[in-house]
């Protein structure tokens, strides 16, 4: 087990297994024009998808957590969570057909509302909306379920005490629900951020990175360099840069998290 950990650090040594070329990879790294594009694309994915899941997941959980029939709750939980389990590559393939400009289902239904021929896959800006729609459908259940469980674990007594003190709904939300939920919120924020920084499946299966490089993520680029161009050394350099990016985001998250996450809930 320890060996596997040591090995995971060994990537730094495996950069050029056959031939030592010094810092050449790093020189290429700074000369690579496409790298800027793929990093910018990845940043766009992060900026779009993280708030999408963190905020909408919470709103959904709050909506389902209200006083509604238990059976209906179970129904919503199933409907929102099942796509998370559905074999991702399979449903992504189905979605890529739904996004088709000419015969896709989505454009058909939009045309009923007189919105015609949206170029989901052909336009550099629409592809991001396409990925966002798919990502919401596929993964919102994850954030939803965590929030849902977090909400259920907030002790009733707090709300009762607040009500006796005359706190209204909004005050109760900001004084009780949000602070009590903050560890869960933090967990979802950190995992979503790390997950979207490494985004691969969604653009690979739905957009193919296109049009051109418009939706190619850093991870797709690493895959291309390592396993299609077979430049393992350079791919390692890029992957280390991605690792450092993720590490700094995470460290920053934990530093900021200290300010607003409250753990003393006993």
């Amino acid at each position: 087990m320890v060996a596997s950990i040591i090995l995971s650090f060994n990537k730094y040594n495996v950069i050029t297994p056959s031939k030592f070329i010094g810092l050449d990879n790093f020189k290429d790294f700074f000369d690579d024009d496409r790298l800027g594009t793929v990093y910018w694309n990845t940043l766009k994915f992060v900026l779009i998808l993280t708030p999408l899941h963190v905020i909408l997941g919470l709103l959904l959980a709050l909506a389902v957590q209200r006083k509604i029939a238990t059976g209906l709750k179970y129904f919503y939980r199933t409907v929102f969570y099942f796509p998370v389990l559905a074999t991702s590559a399979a449903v992504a393939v189905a979605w890529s057909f739904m996004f088709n400009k000419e015969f896709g289902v989505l454009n058909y239904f939009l045309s009923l509302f007189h919105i015609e021929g949206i170029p989901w896959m052909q336009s550099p800006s629409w592809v991001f909306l396409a990925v966002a729609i798919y990502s919401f459908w596929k993964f919102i259940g994850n954030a939803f379920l965590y929030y849902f469980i977090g909400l259920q674990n907030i002790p009733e007594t707090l709300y009762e005490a607040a009500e006796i003190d005359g706190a209204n709904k909004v005050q109760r939300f900001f004084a009780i629900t949000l602070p009590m939920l903050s560890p869960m919120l933090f967990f979802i924020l950190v995992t979503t951020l790390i997950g979207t920084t490494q985004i691969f499946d969604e653009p690979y299966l739905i957009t193919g990175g296109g049009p051109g490089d418009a939706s190619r993520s850093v991870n797709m680029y690493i895959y291309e360099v390592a396993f299609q161009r077979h430049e393992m050394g350079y791919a390692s350099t890029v992957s280390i840069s991605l690792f450092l990016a993720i590490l700094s985001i995470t460290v920053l998250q934990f530093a900021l998290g200290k300010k607003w996450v409250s753990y003393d809930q006993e």
Partner: protein
Amino acid sequence: MSSDVQLASVYTEEQKEIRIGVRRRSAGSYVLDASLLVLSFLMLSPFLWIISTSLRLPKDSFSLPPAIFPTDFNFNNYAEVFNRVPFADFIGNSLKISLLIVVGHIFISSMAAFAFSRISFPGRNLIFIIFLAGLMIPGQVTIIPQFILISRLGLIDTHWALILPALINPLGIFMIRQMMMTISSTYDEAAYMDGASRMWVFLKVILPMVFPAIAVTSVMTFIANWNDFFRPLIFLNTFEKMTLPLGMTVLTGTFGSGNLSAILAGVTLSLVVPLLFYIFGQKYLVEGITAGGLKL
């Protein structure tokens, strides 16, 4: 485990709902109900479309208007999927790989967690921190050295390439250890006093008490590996050895733009195992997360 959990369970479902704040039904609450219903329908509609279209005749598969509810009942597409590509192999491989990983991973993680929480040895905390650092390293960063290692071992295009690296996952060890830490050491002491061996304490005393953590780790490990697309894409080449997610690309390639219905028949079939898994696994997933598997 926090006292919140026990406290919460004292209250009835209705009291729980009341505390969220909707006692008298307001207009806003009806709007929310309606939006939730519409959203649920939108979430379900891709599945309805997938199933309905998979039952269409191949020549109608692309034709509009699309079907949300089945209009034809043509099951030939399902036969096609099995005849033209080794689809049964895909499902079998995915099941085999995911289940072997779950079993192996739980075996290793629970013992490691036991060592990290109940056996004191020099450097224990340091080693544990090194383990946790492994969590910070994203999977795709290690894929290149992993690929080189696997190819030197001659395991490319075998299922071992997928199974072996997945057996050790710091997250599983972390979750099970966290739960073991909450168990009072008086249990072990009493058992050792009665002459129990360490293995007996592990199997009969500690392991049953961390069942929720084991269950949630199993469910999450299964989902992650069942859905894994990246590693099979890199390690597997032969059709017969492919997993279901990778096989989907083969299916798309085979039927291309000619027969969407057959592709969607494959998609429908791919949903069977996750559905069964949801039915049997969701209880443990919810319980496991609730029971403090997630006290970060």
